[in-house]
């Protein structure tokens, strides 16, 4: 490697060194930062939940649900009350409460 070659290589690379314009690159990076994405996703979730709750009351969805429950209860009372097994009902209740407690403990 001669002195001239070293100098030539230096000049060759220096001549090719150009500044690259940002052209929206930094904006794109900031948009993709994880915390920011999480914040945007949280805001979106809250917004969607709020819309759902408002629509729920505007269209009186609670009345539909109440009617369904009432009909189901009445149906069960009319047909199933005679064959109701209190022991089985108690076991099912205990199991469901057990599952509920376990789930709550896991959440904590």
């Amino acid at each position, binding site marked *: *490697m001669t002195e*001239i*070659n*070293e100098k*030539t*290589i*230096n*000049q*060759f*690379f*220096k001549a*090719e*060194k*150009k*500044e*690259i314009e*940002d052209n929206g*690159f*930094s904006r*794109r*990076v*900031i948009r*993709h*930062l*994880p*915390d*920011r994405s999480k914040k945007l996703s949280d805001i979106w979730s809250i917004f969607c939940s709020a819309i759902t709750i408002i629509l729920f009351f505007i269209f009186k969805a609670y009345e539909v649900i109440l009617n369904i429950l009432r009909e189901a209860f009445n149906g069960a009372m009319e047909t199933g009350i005679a064959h109701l097994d209190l022991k089985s009902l108690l076991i099912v209740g205990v199991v469901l409460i057990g599952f509920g407690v376990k789930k709550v403990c896991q959440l904590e």
Partner: protein
Amino acid sequence: MSQLNDISLVAQVVVFKNTRAFDELVKKYQSAIRRFFLNQTLGDSELSDDLAQETFIKAYINIASFKNLSNFSTWLYRIAYNVFYDYIRTRKETAEIDAREVDAIHNTEQENVGQKMDVYQSLKTLKEVERTCVTLFYMEDVSIEKIAGIIGCPTGTVKSHLSRGKEKLAVYLKQNGYDRN
């Protein structure tokens, strides 16, 4: 002064998660990092921008681990180097191709980089690690000690890579009439 400013910006990002401070760091170093990837990928601007974006996101996630033992730019180059070699490794694993073929795949020059063709053609003659050492040393003015820190090897190895790279470049430049300048 510049380093103090960097430290202040980094502190704002670490403590307050200040994205504006990080935006300033991105604006300051985007040119150098994108140019680094352009040289490594031999002018593939789309791939370079994707890898540069990944570099900055990784820097943001791990910014608390920046211990100020080196310049912020050196730390950033180290992440960029790891991002590029992770990319190459994935390509090699998925395509089961050798280094020459990887070079060929990277060599997807864009029409808008015509004026840079010579530099990419010359870099094509080098191995990836030689390319990294040569471009950091000659184009970005990074010292041999810092290059050693970036690529994680002794300074002697960097000197060997530089020496081999220079020999190959000298041949290319002679063949293309640069010795007459």
